[in-house]
């Protein structure tokens, strides 16, 4: 919802300038709810534990946030088109395993060679694996009309199975590579810092900037919002909705691949079960960030905030010693609360719209607005 509410706020503030010049505190609170939620989480846990707001812990937490943020942004793109990608956790696992596989050398059996690609090539190959998973998902959804929930549910199982097959259920350790083979450098992703900032979070930030610019400043971004908002209208306006759908799944796969490599580097091992249930966390970050599962509404900024909320909350709960079981309860409550606030947001927007219509004093147009919004209410109440 935050894309819409952001634009409403824009429109609202320009109207506000005309009418009163005041800022609606409720609107501000709702717009920034994920941000205020994050601030509240930080304050509460800082009070509860002196170890929470230390440099070390913040670094640890942000490295977790980087994973959720990367997965979440890929998920955001899919959700913006009105779809869902349940395969990102498995793709993350597979890509971690593939990272280990490539670093340990590609055995070209009959030729008698073992190929050790440099870390950059590994990076590209692994991104290619993620893209391939996304491509299969996207083609199934766009061209074979398999509902995205089903197509990616299938991929969730199949991709995980492939990861287990490749390693035979085992874990790749010793991923630093060998200098003489020229494939060192994976450690850098998970452990190094640039100007005291972990590389993982920098990668997340770079991806975020690229995606934000893509969404807001390119034709593809506009197509994406239009496809999610109303695919039929977009198609009839000349938007290549099928290609857009394929591409968002590919990008989601690539995001999962990057997350997989960062996680593998952080853990210094590549296990085939890494990232299990992460697809749900990714959906949670997107939802907390204010996106609508119906599509068309959502921002990169919101999703990043969602990732911070989830990361800082779950780590905080660990630090203050809340049991694993309670952690799940709290996380669940936060997710539902976030969505609950979305529906409040929706109602207040309706109120605002009516108010502004009246102040503008265009009777015909404004009454139509209210008839419209009331008919929405009417149909929902009739449905209920």
């Amino acid at each position, binding site marked *: 919802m935050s894309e819409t509410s952001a*634009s409403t706020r824009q429109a609202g503030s320009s109207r506000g300038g005309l009418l009163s010049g005041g800022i609606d505190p409720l609107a501000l609170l709702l717009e920034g709810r994920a941000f205020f939620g994050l601030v509240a989480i930080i304050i509460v846990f800082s009070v509860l534990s002196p170890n929470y707001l230390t440099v070390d812990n913040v670094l640890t937490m942000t490295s977790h946030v980087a994973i959720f943020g990367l997965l979440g942004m890929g998920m955001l793109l899919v959700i913006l088109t009105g779809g869902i990608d349940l395969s990102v956790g498995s793709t993350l696992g597979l890509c971690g395993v593939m990272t280990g596989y490539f670093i340990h050398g590609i055995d070209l059996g009959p030729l008698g060679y073992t190929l050790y690609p440099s870390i950059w090539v590994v990076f590209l190959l692994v991104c290619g694996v993620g893209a391939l998973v996304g491509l299969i998902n996207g083609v199934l959804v766009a061209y074979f009309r398999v509902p995205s929930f089903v197509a990616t549910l299938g991929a969730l199982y199949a991709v995980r199975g492939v990861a287990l097959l490749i390693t035979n259920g085992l874990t790749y350790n010793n991923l630093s590579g060998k200098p003489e083979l020229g494939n060192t450098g994976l450690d850098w992703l998970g452990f190094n810092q640039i100007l005291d900032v972990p590389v993982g979070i920098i990668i997340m930030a770079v991806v975020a900037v690229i995606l934000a610019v893509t969404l807001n400043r390119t034709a593809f971004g*506009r197509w994406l919002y239009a496809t999610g908002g109303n695919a039929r209208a977009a198609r009839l306006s*000349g938007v290549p909705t099928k290609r857009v759908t394929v591409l968002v799944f590919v990008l989601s796969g690539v995001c999962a691949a990057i997350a997989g490599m960062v996680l593998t580097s952080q853990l210094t091992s590549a296990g085939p079960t890494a990232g299990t249930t992460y697809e749900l966390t990714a959906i949670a970050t997107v939802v907390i960030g204010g996106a609508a599962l119906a599509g068309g509404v959502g921002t990169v900024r919101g999703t990043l905030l969602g990732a911070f909320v989830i990361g800082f909350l779950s780590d905080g709960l660990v630090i203050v010693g809340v049991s694993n079981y309670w952690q799940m309860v709290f996380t669940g409550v936060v997710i539902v609360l976030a969505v609950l606030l979305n529906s409040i947001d929706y109602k207040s927007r309706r109120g605002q719209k009516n*108010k502004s219509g009246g102040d503008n004093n265009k009777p*015909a147009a*404004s*009454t139509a607005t209210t008839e419209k919004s009331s*008919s929405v209410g009417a*149909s929902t109440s009739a449905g209920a």
Partner: protein
Amino acid sequence: MSDLAREQNQPVPVLSARDIVKNYGGVRALKGVDFDIYPGTVTTLFGENGAGKSTLMKILSGVERPTDGQLILDGESVTFTSTVDARDRGISIIHQELSLSPNMSVRDNIFMGREIVRAGRVDYAEEARQAAALMAELEEDIDPLTPVGELRVGQQQIVEIARALSVNSRILIMDEPTSALSASEIEVLFKVIHDLTDRGVAIVYISHHLEEALEITDYAVVLRDGAMTAKETRDQIDLPWIVRHMVGDHFDLGSPPEGYTFGETALSVQSLTVPDASATGRAAVDDLSLEVAAGEIVCIYGLMGAGRTELLEALAGGSAIERGRILLDGRDISRDSIAQRIAAGLCLVPEDRQRDGLVQSMTVGRNMSLASISEFVRNLFLSSRDERSIVDDSIRDVHVKTDGPDAMIGSLSGGNQQKVVIGKMMSTHPKVILLDEPSRGIDIGAKAEVFKLLSERAKQGVAVVYSTSEVSECLSIAHRIIVMGRGRIVAEFGPDVSKEQIMAASGESAD
């Protein structure tokens, strides 16, 4: 006339609304409206979009509570707490948008929420019997066990009407009940309405088809800007009277633009055949050929199911064709994608603007620029300045009344939303513009503006093809009127044809 006799005998209204005010936020949707409904009569509510018709009906049927004012039922002041409350007191409403569950059967839809229960279980047999009886009454051959989703829209409307009838309402409110019905179905509906009024049921009728409403009504009430402007019995009024009170001044849908010569053939359709999506083996458009010159305005008239929508959609690339060629300026575009056809200069303003025309989650400006994004891409990125100037031009060109390009699309009235869809397509600089029922669901003022806009474009050399199901709209700006039936062109007329000729050609009776 029986109602006239009642009028002289001071008839007692069954339901009265007194001084009804309804505010939404700061907007006054209704400004103190008085409204009476008499038993055994039809009262038609006329008014443009946004005049407050639907709001008033929602108050009468318990969907909304009035901000101020009084409802008097059988001489007693009442407040309806919900639609169920109103229904229990004998007031039913058939909404403009159908509220049926497509996955459930006709029987289950009719009895939804008030199932007939015997000994703790639903008596399906009794429900089916009553449903079948209702269908027979409505002269509609529908098995009560058919899923509603498999019915045509017109038949679904009949089911909706059957549901309202099944509760034995004393007052039945119909909001645009005929918008999806064929001529024969409308005839049956009118017969049902007569039967109901003979039984003493009071009907409130809302329709944009003024002539059709005049045919059935006993009383006419006109709303404008949330206030009642006129109230009269049927024998005192005619079409110009209604329009005068609705719009406030005279209106004119225009005449064919003159004073220029047509250019070369812009659009040439050759032996086009489009398969029917709902029935295999049938053709929705059957071996149809048509030529339209640059600057010419062609109107396609036809009943529901005549193939108008299918023809226009196939031309625009929205559906696959079986056979035939589509030439734009002499070049075959029948294999091109929608985007390629738009780029080549052919675009479609779809019939259902909510479903096919607008992205509700986007602003007015972004909807407006959606089809012409390539015009403001500068080195990969969108130029918001260029976009803004394109959007501002379009808003001015098509006269959209809006707070600005950043307003949400939902804040606009139906007519203005339609203008946004037209503006969106106009800004792709088309050579041929196709419009499927451009006047659907918009008021007369907006209609006239839309037609004026189209004739201006035609003068600039754009070929315009629009479809309509209202005869009066054929006889406005079109240079040529084509009547379609069963996927073929059954007649072709010049602008001096009479309404009766057009209707006769379409297979519709003129009265």
